[in-house]
């Protein structure tokens, strides 16, 4: 390919360009010409095409996402809000925490191991970029049916990839989800969350201020990885009949990333950078245009200085390459010597590739020839914005009108059968097969991880200050009612933090949906965002950032709307947390909250092939009172244990509690046909010492939360209304599912 320069573009305005193949629409291409006053060079076209892709520009979601800013609560806790690489939250004692969740769905379908691994690598670099030391990861995963052939192909690779990369970095994996549903076949969801910690003064932003400052690229060399990955991989549906667009998959090297983390943290500690950006999707195109537009706008880059792994790469390819483990920093000239010295110490390749100018244009040259000359904001932030048509899909009223008709466990035999079936179903079965492949305790600060309600890590070894994080989505409810579904997922994630006694503080999200060009999918998306924004406003929780993943569909079938909500909470002393289960007999068990006949979207209904009915309506005021109760229960030392009720209802919660420490329980409930299997939101089972019952009732009455005594702990069985389920039998049912399925 001959070099296309700005001069050539001016001289040959009518050259035909492959904008459509790069994913740009005709009017988008016209707009680029309008911005530049000429046709773009091929390098400029490459940059605009990746940066204006759905994945990078949020062009379909922007108009909805702005609600997170408009409806935002005023809070002093938010130090950095939406728009930066990740939001930053004040957690007290001078510490700030940053956390974010991102999707790596499509790459993980193509190449499960590397796709999932580089998903972890990418989110870890986002957190590092804020100036924080990454301290833990989590990964909500969704797959097709557990017994499907493709699930057997992608699941082991994805789990191994998450584990392989995270374990090599020495980051504990403190939780996540593994959910199976038909709609994820051919389109697994791999979402990755990372949390990092820093001091307030250490926050770094993506901006290139100060003319004369140097643009420095450091980390791995640039190769032909994932070229066009962003626009082709993340924004177009796979089509078996279409042209073979087998994209180059990115392969990561976690040991390089580990060195990059330590090298960057040493550079941050000496305050040697003005601005910093990691290279993820859209590689250098993204990093240079975002850094430049974060500053005054002017930047000059000599692209031929970029160190290459493959010398034959063209400038267009270098700009689009998604080679992993690279960072771009803005460094004042007086600090550059020290910067290079630190990189040398860590054996990290580092190159000055350009400088900040006092102009307003991003100029990129290739061996002295000008190949890019653009206003960077038009690349990074002023991409197209679409107000996509949306329409409530016809299925909604139809399925909402359906009645759930499932077997009701009434007799002792039916109760036993139901509990065992729920314990063994893949969505509720023991996930140790997965989590034992992850290092959950490395660094020695993990307080909670799977199977606890939330992950919890200590961030100060002297004061025992800690943070807890939970991620949740209930796609079945979102399918029935996306507005309530998003609120309910938010409530569940917040409750999962609070059961341990941590106080919810901030929200992140990863919104996984089908094609935005389908008005029905767009309606699901809009409703979900509206629900989440309203929910966060009502609960007083700021949204610190997030990620949108569209085009998750196989053919015409979109995935269930899957807004994964992550909530971060703070706990002043991790030693005082409330554990999820009891380890002794003689405690009393109470159910907090009200149970209604909420079977629509429940696991029990799903197991019986039923998807219809009406989702519960979220009562966030009650959820907040329940959270208050749980936090006060922890600080007043009322609870011995507390465990959330969600998928699988009371049956699943009791199963997990008795199996945790092999201490049984004797439970008596009214109306087991509903109470055992219903998934009414806003409920928790707590175990309390008989001496604390008075205190429990007092707090519950103050917070107006219903308290029902359901039993006592002890024995070697879970006994429900006389149905005796020996723990050995229950454990076998709960644990052998994954082993049978995946070996």
């Amino acid at each position: 390919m001959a070099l296309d320069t700005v001069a050539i573009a001016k001289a040959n305005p009518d050259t035909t360009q492959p904008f459509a193949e790069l994913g740009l629409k005709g009017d988008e291409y016209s707009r680029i010409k309008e911005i530049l006053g000429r046709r773009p060079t091929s390098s400029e076209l490459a940059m605009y095409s990746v940066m204006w892709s759905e994945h990078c520009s949020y062009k379909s979601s922007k108009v909805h996402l702005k609600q997170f800013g408009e409806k935002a609560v005023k809070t002093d806790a938010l130090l950095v809000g939406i728009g930066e690489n990740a939001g930053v939250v004040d957690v007290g004692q001078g510490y700030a925490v940053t956390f974010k969740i991102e999707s790596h769905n499509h790459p993980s379908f193509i190449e499960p191991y590397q796709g999932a691994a580089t998903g972890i690598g990418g989110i870890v670099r986002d957190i590092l970029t804020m100036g924080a030391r990454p301290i833990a990861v989590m990964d909500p995963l969704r797959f097709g049916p557990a017994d499907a052939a493709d699930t057997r192909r992608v699941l082991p690779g994805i789990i191994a990839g998450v584990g392989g990369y995270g374990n090599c970095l020495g980051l504990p994996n403190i939780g996540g989800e593994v959910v199976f549903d038909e709609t994820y076949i051919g389109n697994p969801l791999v979402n990755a969350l990372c949390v990092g910690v820093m001091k307030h003064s250490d926050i770094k932003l993506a901006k290139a201020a100060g003319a004369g400052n140097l643009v420095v690229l450091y980390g791995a060399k640039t190769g032909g990885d994932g070229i066009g990955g962003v626009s082709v991989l993340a924004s177009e549906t796979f089509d078996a009949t279409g042209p073979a667009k087998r994209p180059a998959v990115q392969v990561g090297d976690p040991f390089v990333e580990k060195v990059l983390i330590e090298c960057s943290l040493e550079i941050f500690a000496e305050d040697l950078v003005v601005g910093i950006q990691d290279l993820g999707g859209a590689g250098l195109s993204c990093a240079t245009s975002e850094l430049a537009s974060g500053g005054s706008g002017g930047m000059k880059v000599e692209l031929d200085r970029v160190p290459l792994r493959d010398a034959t790469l063209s400038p267009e390819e270098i700009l689009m390459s998604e080679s992993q483990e690279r960072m771009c920093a803005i460094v004042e000239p007086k600090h550059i010597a020290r910067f290079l010295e630190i990189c040398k110490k860590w054996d990290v390749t580092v190159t000055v590739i350009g400088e900040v100018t006092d102009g307003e244009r991003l100029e990129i040259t290739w061996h002295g020839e000008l190949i890019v000359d653009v206003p960077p904001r038009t690349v990074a932030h002023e991409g197209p914005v679409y107000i996509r048509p949306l329409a409530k899909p016809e299925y909604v009223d139809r399925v909402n009108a359906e009645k759930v008709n499932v077997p009701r466990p009434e007799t002792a035999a039916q109760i036993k059968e139901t509990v065992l079936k729920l314990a063994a179903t893949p969505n509720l079965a023991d996930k140790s097969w997965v989590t034992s492949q992850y290092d959950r305790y490395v660094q020695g600060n993990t307080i909670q991880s799977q199977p606890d309600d939330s992950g919890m890590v200590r961030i100060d070894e002297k004061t025992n200050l800690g943070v807890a994080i939970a991620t949740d989505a209930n796609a079945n409810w979102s399918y029935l009612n996306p507005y309530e579904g998003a609120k309910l997922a938010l409530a569940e994630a917040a409750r999962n933090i609070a059961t341990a006694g941590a106080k919810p503080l901030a929200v992140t999200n990863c919104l996984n949906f089908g094609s935005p060009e389908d008005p029905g999918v767009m309606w699901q998306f809009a409703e979900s965002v509206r629900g989440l924004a309203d929910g966060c406003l009502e609960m007083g929780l700021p949204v610190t950032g997030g990620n949108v993943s569209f085009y998750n569909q196989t053919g015409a079938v979109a995935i269930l709307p899957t807004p994964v909500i992550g909530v971060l909470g703070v706990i002043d002393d991790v030693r005082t947390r409330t554990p999820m289960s009891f380890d002794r007999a003689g405690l009393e068990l109470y159910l907090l909250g009200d149970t209604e006949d909420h079977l629509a979207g429940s696991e029990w209904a799903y197991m019986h092939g039923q998807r219809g009915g009406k989702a519960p309506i979220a009562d966030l005021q009650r959820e907040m009172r329940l959270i208050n109760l749980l936090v006060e229960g922890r600080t007043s030392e009322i609870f011995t244990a507390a465990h959330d009720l969600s998928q699988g209802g009371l049956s699943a919660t009791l199963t997990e509690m008795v199996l945790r420490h092999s201490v049984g329980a004797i439970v008596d409930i009214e109306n087991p046909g509903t109470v055992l299997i219903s998934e009414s939101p806003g409920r928790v089972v707590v175990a309390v010492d008989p001496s604390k019952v008075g205190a429990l009732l007092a707090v519950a009455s103050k917070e107006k939360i219903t308290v029902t005594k359901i039993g006592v702990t002890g024995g070697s069985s879970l006994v429900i209304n006389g149905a005796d389920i020996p723990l050995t039998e229950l454990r076998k049912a709960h644990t052998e599912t994954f082993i049978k399925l995946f070996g």
Partner: protein
Amino acid sequence: MAKIVVDVMLKPEILDPQGVAVSAALPRLGFTFAKSVRQGKRFEIEVDGEPTPAQLAEVEKATEKLLANPVIETFTVRVEK
């Protein structure tokens, strides 16, 4: 008895962390000849008699399914006397 050899290499555009590590280690040991190193793997499959074209086609299929990951690797199948 003949030997079918399958050589598997990462595609040229794919990062090869092992190769990078080897090429960094060579000069440390005083070997300065290498400009770059890429590492692959080799399978030796013994079969009875002279391999037939059908057998080789079978090996190709098996390689695509098991021995190599065609998304990120290329391979060659040959007979070694």
